[in-house]
């Protein structure tokens, strides 16, 4: 069984976890200034990369905490897990962080 390293509990079986979709999507500071298309993009449009993807995960059948993970969508390998509000350690992650919002990623 795939093991996922919960930042609070350590390595735990994958069935204890739920995926919460793409991570690091910042809510627009001023939603009223956005067009409907921009707002819809923030709400609904997500990346679907072939490769490294930053995701939110929830250790629902464990400590119940949400955390972030960087996962390779090809190999299903977890490269890093880190608590909410923390930044990932390794180099490649910087590119993920710098494209933290959909709007920035598409600009």
């Amino acid at each position, binding site marked *: 069984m795939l093991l996922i390293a919960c930042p*609070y509990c350590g*390595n735990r079986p994958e069935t204890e976890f739920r995926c919460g979709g793409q991570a690091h999507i910042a809510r627009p500071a001023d939603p009223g200034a956005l067009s409907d298309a921009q707002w819809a993009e923030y709400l609904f449009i997500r990346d679907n990369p072939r490769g490294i993807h930053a995701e939110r995960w929830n250790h629902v059948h464990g*400590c119940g905490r949400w955390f972030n993970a960087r996962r390779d969508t090809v190999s299903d390998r977890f490269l890093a897990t880190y608590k909410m509000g923390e930044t990932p350690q390794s180099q490649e992650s910087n590119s993920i962080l710098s494209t933290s919002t959909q709007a920035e990623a598409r600009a």
Partner: protein
Amino acid sequence: MLEALYRTARALPLGRAPASDPACSGVQITPAGAEARFALRIRDAGASAAGLPLDGPINSVRGDDRRWIARLGPDEWLIGSDEAEADQLPAAIAADLGERAHAIVDVSHRNVGIDVSGPLAAAVLNAGCPLDLGDAAFPAGSATRTLFGKAEIVLIRHDGATPRYRVECWRSFATYVHGLLAEASLGVGETARR
């Protein structure tokens, strides 16, 4: 008190089922009697409340068989105690925590306990639980929420020379969990090898 009367009238979903060892493999599966349990949530907990330590690491249990406190997450604890103490414990904890924001909820009626003990107890539990229950990964004094089959459980390992586990599940899962434990115990030990 109404609560006290209510507790006395509590029906146990597994009845007064006797301790069983279906496979004669030395694994005893014993439904626990009625006990009081509380879910405590507090951020930035202090050292202790009502004599229960709150400073243990995540996924550990403190106390003895009768009165224990398991830390399930950074801000979540599950407390077990005798029913006799149940009416006083929440007030005692609230008094110790004082003004700090917290939630203590009586979940005695939600939880059902099953004791699993014996040298091969870990093998029985691993039939439905994918956790590593080896001595290095899950020593005595460990406690965690996890899965057993399709049911969510809290698994506690008490101190002792032979492994002694407590499985805490929600009452609607109790017959399922108990049945799965009994079934799994048929697959370990001498009986399974024959």
